[in-house]
């Protein structure tokens, strides 16, 4: 079971923060789960019942080898396989910015789970502005692509996301911001490269 045992030190700071927002023994759906690192970590450390969605063959195979349940599907097709409120928390880590239909996936997240967690590169990171002032599109660690080969089509700042969340009636409960593997607390909308939000679904059933 060696592949299961992911030492906490090997889990990125943002994933650890995401994990800290997830209740033990709860049901988690990880969209774009990659090789299943987060879910394996959650299964081991929080006894979470998880499922992942991943399109890429190699990542999917890696997740299966880790013992993570994974459903191979394109997120752009929506989450039709999942019922309303089937999960406690749904995670979309570092993927929102590359989705064609941003609003739709957020609505779907709110439909299938009580809580949603999204992370995305912060376009408001101040060197980006500096780069644009110098006439070039920014290329940084969190967005290492050139303008012509980037999969990122919907870049936003923290304020932009908060605006959309409000429109969709997603009640933001937590925010964490990172620069590299370090959490940023001071002036995060300028100084962070990655934003992680937790929100509550407006569809949450009253229990």
């Amino acid at each position, binding site marked *: *079971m060696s592949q299961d045992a992911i030492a906490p030190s090997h889990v990125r700071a943002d994933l650890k923060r995401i994990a800290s927002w997830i209740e033990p023994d709860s049901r988690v759906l990880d969209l774009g789960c990659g090789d299943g690192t987060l879910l394996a970590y959650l299964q081991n450390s929080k006894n979470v019942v998880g499922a992942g969605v991943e399109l890429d*063959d190699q990542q999917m*195979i890696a997740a299966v080898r880790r*013992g993570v*349940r994974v459903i191979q*599907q394109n997120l752009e097709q929506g989450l*039709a396989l*999942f*019922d309303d409120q089937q999960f406690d928390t749904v995670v979309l880590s570092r993927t929102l910015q590359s989705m064609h239909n941003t609003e739709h996936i957020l609505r779907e997240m709110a439909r299938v789970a009580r809580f949603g967690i999204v992370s995305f590169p912060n376009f408001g990171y101040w060197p980006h502005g500096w780069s644009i002032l110098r006439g070039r599109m920014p290329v940084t660690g969190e967005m290492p692509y050139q303008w012509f080969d980037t999969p990122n089509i919907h870049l936003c700042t923290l304020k932009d996301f908060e605006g959309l969340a409000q429109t969709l009636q997603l009640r933001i409960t937590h925010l964490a911001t990172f620069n590299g593997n370090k959490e940023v607390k001071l002036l995060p909308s300028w100084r962070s490269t990655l934003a992680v939000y937790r929100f509550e679904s407006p569809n949450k059933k009253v229990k």
Partner: protein
Amino acid sequence: MAELTVPNLPSTVPASTATAQASAIPPGSVGVVSPQFISFNEPLALTSGQVLPSYELAVETYGTLNEQRNNAVLICHALNASHHVAGIAADNPKDIGWWDNMVGPGKAVDTDRFFVVGVNNIGSCFGSTGPASINPETGKPWGAAFPMLTVEDWVRAQARLADHFNIDKFAAVMGGSLGGMQALSWAITCPERVEHCIVIASTPRLSAQNIGFNEVARRSIISDPDFHGGDYYANNTVPRHGLSVARMVGHITYLSDDDMAAKFGRAQRAPADNGEFHYGYDVEFEVESYLRYQGEKFSTYFDANTYLLITRALDYFDPSRNCGGDLARALQAVKAGFLLVSFSTDWRFPPERSHEIVRALLKNQVPVTYAEINAPHGHDAFLLDDARYHAVVQGYYDRIAARLGLGEREHITGVLA
């Protein structure tokens, strides 16, 4: 009770002790294999209301059943397959098992750790009791009198086989296409006896189009003058032409349009001297030649009554039928973990059919993993060497082995080697 006709010995001859053929056994093969024939004298009550008074099952096994008897894997066969899942048939060295690329030492289904059972279903023509067998009441072949069968009947017969081997619970029940239906049915009808259910290129029920193709196949057999209402054995005839046409129709549905285009396109077969058509109904195109060859070959070894029975069992399969069409309700009692695999170009049982199963399982909070392989080969892809597909199955089995404490994989052979 199950009565042993052949001693319960492993039917696999280990490669090291198979003398003459040893040099010809490739790595990853289970070696030279022979079937066992196991008799069951307790009548089997069938879904149709008919009763099969007694029956025999042809079985091959590979690997060793461990002391806890928890490492058994049942492989359910598809339409024209049999118990000969892997290895080299002892009586015909050219007869390699139909899923030999999947099952063997070091392969995805690793027989170094798992005890694999391949069983031929009742109604078949490959050794188990079927329409060509002698009806004990009349002393003549069953023919048209052989009872109709369902997938659930096969599962019941297989469950008795599990009893025979003292296997309370299979580590996995696995099958592709019709075999996947049996695996699904196992998980529903015997939830306590299946740890994992592996359903590949399958469906929870046939569509009208599927049934339509089956009906064309059956009518071509039944309307063959040599069919004699199913009692052709007594007339010393075989409805070869009908069976051959049936196979041609089936064969088309197993391939994808792209695959056929790539293989044959509109290539002409023996065109006239000036490259022209012959303007007649003999073979003009390569694809016709291929299909006729496949059909004729099939009609020499497959029993027409078996083809009718099996396609009908396919049509009948629908576990949601007793639950108002609600598959999720039909799957409520399921306890197994699931692996499903579908192939993007499979238009016989397309990915959407697997989605239905995935959805219903998720609804019941059943653990499910689903791979949708983007492969060009249509329905037949489940038998072919696709590394991604085999890697998913291998990864899944390695997890099963880890959970059951069956040890580590020692080596990798086959498609992934």
